[in-house]
């Protein structure tokens, strides 16, 4: 039982953590939190299944194609739902524009793909123990952490990302191409979400129900860890997955969701900026 809690908990937690990182990457690039984060995660699974099982592409082609498509959807999100709103006066309308786009993605998938969960292909194969569906999400999570670390610390583009996240105005004054960076940020976020959906495909299956589910459980670690804080997001995601699985075994069913939701509300009410975030200083 314990090994089952641990393996499933860490795997699901890694998927949550990746969606949380998706939220953070988008936020860093644009100060926008997007309802599309979980939906693109869902699409990662759907596109993976579509490319490999329906179109019979080999995995080496299907996998990069999935990431590429999801990155494209990220760019599309930026162009359709974020850029027009950022150009206007009422920037908080991004909540509505990204919600609208997320709903469109969900409905489109429901009609053109399926409302029922569909099978997802095995990726590595062979007789590993534990099964690949438990360690693929963890591997993906580790790869993303490493990749982001290298990007932010070693490359010029990564430093530009950090600069724009730290102080948008100052970064623009220095001549950083804010719009291109924002678009790149959304592409990166899309690819990360797609990776989450692909790596978690065997666990979650290719189902539209994953969209809203990942949206919410991917946001919980963001809210608790503090917006833009990737370490908090990853720790929070893994803990959430473990907590959920443990509670599933111990009390079971609906009480788990209620408990997660209650904990989420209570922590946010006590610390709206998250456990590791800093409160804003001045309003007037």
């Amino acid at each position: 039982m314990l090994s089952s809690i641990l393996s499933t908990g860490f795997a699901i937690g890694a998927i949550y953590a990746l969606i949380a990182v998706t939220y953070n990457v988008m936020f860093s690039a644009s100060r926008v939190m997007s309802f599309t984060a979980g939906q693109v995660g869902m699409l990662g699974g759907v596109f993976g299944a579509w490319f490999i099982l329906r179109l019979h592409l080999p995995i080496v082609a299907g996998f990069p194609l999935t990431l590429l498509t999801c990155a494209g959807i990220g760019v599309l999100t930026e162009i359709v739902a974020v850029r027009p709103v950022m150009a206007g006066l009422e920037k908080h309308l991004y909540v509505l524009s990204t919600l609208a786009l997320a709903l469109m993605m969900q409905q489109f998938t429901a009609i053109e793909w399926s409302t029922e969960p569909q099978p997802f292909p095995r990726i590595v194969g062979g007789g590993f123990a534990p099964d690949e569906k438990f360690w693929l999400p963890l591997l993906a999570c580790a790869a993303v952490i490493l990749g982001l670390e290298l990007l932010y610390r070693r490359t010029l583009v990564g430093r530009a990302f950090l600069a724009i996240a730290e102080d948008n105005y100052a970064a623009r004054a220095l001549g950083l191409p804010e719009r291109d960076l924002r678009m790149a940020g959304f592409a990166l976020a899309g690819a990360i979400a797609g990776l989450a959906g692909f790596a978690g495909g065997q666990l979650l299956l290719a189902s539209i129900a994953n969209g809203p589910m990942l949206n919410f459980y991917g946001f919980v670690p963001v809210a608790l860890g503090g917006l833009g804080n990737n370490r908090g997001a990853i720790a929070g995601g893994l803990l959430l997955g473990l907590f959920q699985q443990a509670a599933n075994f111990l009390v079971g069913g609906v009480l788990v969701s209620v408990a997660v939701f209650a904990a989420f509300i209570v922590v946010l009410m006590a610390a709206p900026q998250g456990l590791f975030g800093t409160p804003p200083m001045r309003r007037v």
Partner: protein
Amino acid sequence: MRSRVAALPYVLIFAAATAIPLAGDDYLVVIATRAAVYWVLVSGLNLVVGFAGQLAIGWVSLLTIGAYTTSIIVARDWLGPLPALAVAGVAGALAGVLVGLPALRLRTFYFAMTTLGFATIVTQVALAWTEVTGGGIGITGPALPAPLDSQTGFYLFCLALAAVCTWMTLNIAASRFGRALVGLRDAEVAAEAMGISKANLLVMVFLFSGATAAVAGGLFATLQSYITPDAFTFDLSVLFFIAILIGGRGSVLGPLLGTVLLTALPEFAAPLVAWSTFLYAALLLVIVIALPGGIADLLDQRRRRKLPEDRLVVPRPDLVPSLIAPQPDRPAMILSGVRLSFGAVRAIDGLDLMLRPGEVHGLIGPNGSGKTTTLNVISGFSVPQEGEVRIGDAPLPGGATQTRAGLGIARTFQTPRAIGEASVRENVMIGGTIEGRASFAECVLALPRHRRDEATLRAQAERCLRIVGLEALADERADRLQHSELRFMEVARALMLCPAFLLLDEPAAGLSADEITRLGALIKAVKEAGCGVLLVEHHADLIFEICDRVTVLNLGRELAAGTPSEIRAHREVVSAYLGG
């Protein structure tokens, strides 16, 4: 007369709706019933989303709660269907507060997520709590007694409730509570400074809209005759939410039309049914990007009316005594030893200051010297780490912004904070929100005390507008005003309180030389009526012209203090700030 014209569209809509059963088309009546039931919910939600600007996207949870509450009560024979509907209303009101509570601390996306989470939880509980809700198998909806059990009877009943909800929300919209909600949405900081308590107001609104949503849920259960958790999809939430945004925020007519439109549209275009939520979402995206004001903005004639171009703001200082009666022996406001740092920056570093009634006290100094921060400490937006502010012997509670208006402290802001979509008169009336006596319930039902409040506030607003010289623009939307007019409008809003102390944050910034002269005369008249004015300004001429005392700040500390002529002769001030 005005109100009769405004009521016309509603009368037409409901008259047409009453005539629908005469067409003899049963299916049409079913759709119309559904629209009426949805509107009962949306009318209440409109106050949350359209007026208060809270993004409650998971409101279907309250429909679910109402539907199950009535169905369970009736199925177990605890009460008849109509009392059950009333019980559902109470349960919904409480649930509404529960869902809405996070809005007191959380903003936009965060709050939206919590309502979404709540909606998921409610559906899961309905599914899992089999012995009570019937789980996935479901439960029979309540059947209403005759004559409401016939199709037409039930339709007319729903329509009557929809009409009552329309009337109630219109009453709230036209009350000080409605204006305060919009104030919190568009100018939260200013609303707090005018004594509006976000917590109290939102709790009342969540009670109200929770109740209407749950009553709609009861009707929905009857309409469906059998309910399962599947009936309460997120798509319904989307419909409610989008109907309001398409209709336009801060309007009742717009969302009403939006609800009818979204309910009817897919029914008359059968191939679209599967795509309806997709189309709603696409419509939302278009509205957000192209027409954030929604249908209501298209209908609003005031947006197109031409304003005279060469208009002048001519205040009438001579009318100030008719507004503010001098009260002798008022205590002064005293700041003693106030210290406040933001991190390592010492914004105010031990400031003493006395603001006497009947005096204009100038606060000048270079940018970053702590002038606005001083005003913020007085209004409670910043809490000093040391020292205190008191009026006479009574210390002001640190923070507690919304207590300041009650103590007679009014203020304006460095950038005017106005509600663009509201009229100039409504903007000014918000300044007198705390003077109203009628409760929220009295406003909902338009009882006499509420109507007296409105008449008083309106008359007071007219007086204040005449004093600042904006009475000709009273009916215009505030977003059409020029910058200088907005500044005078903020002064009028502050005067609504007949304040004992008036804090002005750079009121002359952006004004022409003539306008500054007229503003100076107005401030002088306010002071002579016994008000203590604290004036933060960069225009040295204005300061030396109208101030009785001047304090010069530098790096959060007092550099000099005294009469204007002493300051003008102060060598350090001249070299550091005035130049010369």
